[in-house]
């Protein structure tokens, strides 16, 4: 039986755990701790929520002028033109 994890140790292993990068023995220690610790279960849940919130940040849409410039670049490239190098 390996030594038990403390909560302070567990929070530093959360990313490795979520990434599937923890060695099997450590996964077991991690999950054993979680099973008996509501605070750490909440912590893990908070991390999952955090990832979700970051993942939902609103997207920028391409401004029409930017699209026009890009399209001009594309057409120039198609014609084999070399555009002036950026200022």
């Amino acid at each position, binding site marked *: 039986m390996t030594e038990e994890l403390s909560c302070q140790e567990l929070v530093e292993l959360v990313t490795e755990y979520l990434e599937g990068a923890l060695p099997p023995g450590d996964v077991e220690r991690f999950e054993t701790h979680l099973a008996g610790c509501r605070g750490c279960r909440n912590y893990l849940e908070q991390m999952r929520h955090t990832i979700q919130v970051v993942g939902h*940040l609103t997207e920028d*849409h391409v401004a029409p002028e930017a699209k026009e410039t890009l399209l001009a670049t594309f057409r120039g490239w198609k014609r084999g033109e070399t555009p002036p190098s950026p200022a």
Partner: protein
Amino acid sequence: MPATQLPYVPSSVRRPGEPFAMTGEGKPTGFTLSAEDRRVVEALRHGDETVFLALVERYYATMRRLAAVYVDDPAVVEDVVQDAWLGALQGIHRFEGRSSFKTWLLRILTNIAKTRAQRERRSIAFSNLVSDDVEGDEPAVAPERFLTSGRWVGHWAAAPASWATVEDRLAAIETQTYVAQAIQTLSPHQRQVIILRDIEGLNADEVCNILGLTETNQRVLLHRARSKVRRVLEQFINAA
């Protein structure tokens, strides 16, 4: 993230059954280009405007965010995106299919943004090395949240609460704004990694490839970035 649907690429681009000429093909890179990426690259090589515009739209937010890590001025950010597309188009015939199209495109963007940052004399802000950013002590949770003595040393003194009942609040626009600001306060390396991993949804290998990071450093940067955003989010939720 909701990917923009790519338009149908006419089959006239290539005859059915005709193999694609990706010069890197057959080399043991351990990477297989997806059928969609093959279509995209072929369409670009054939000058397909519709496909080009769909790609511009799809990668625009990511390209801007990544460029903004290096350069401040929104006009310069826009230039970097434009130059990256030009670089990609000029190099499309040399694309070897050793990574996904997205990885390849974002690597071009990163190189251009770096060069531009040096020219804009912003290299100081970005001069800290990855090693400085992954070494040293940066605890995920403030040490005072844990007991410092007794039988339960290292266990929660102030345990985190469940967020199951605040899901509406987590999804609120003001929360998003707050989180976006929190991401701005991260170190540049941490910011790059969280943008690519959690906003763009790239996998660890792709991010290592684009940013030239080792697997371990990528994970440490991601850990520090997510932990910090969680801390900020916790303060925000608790203050409500």
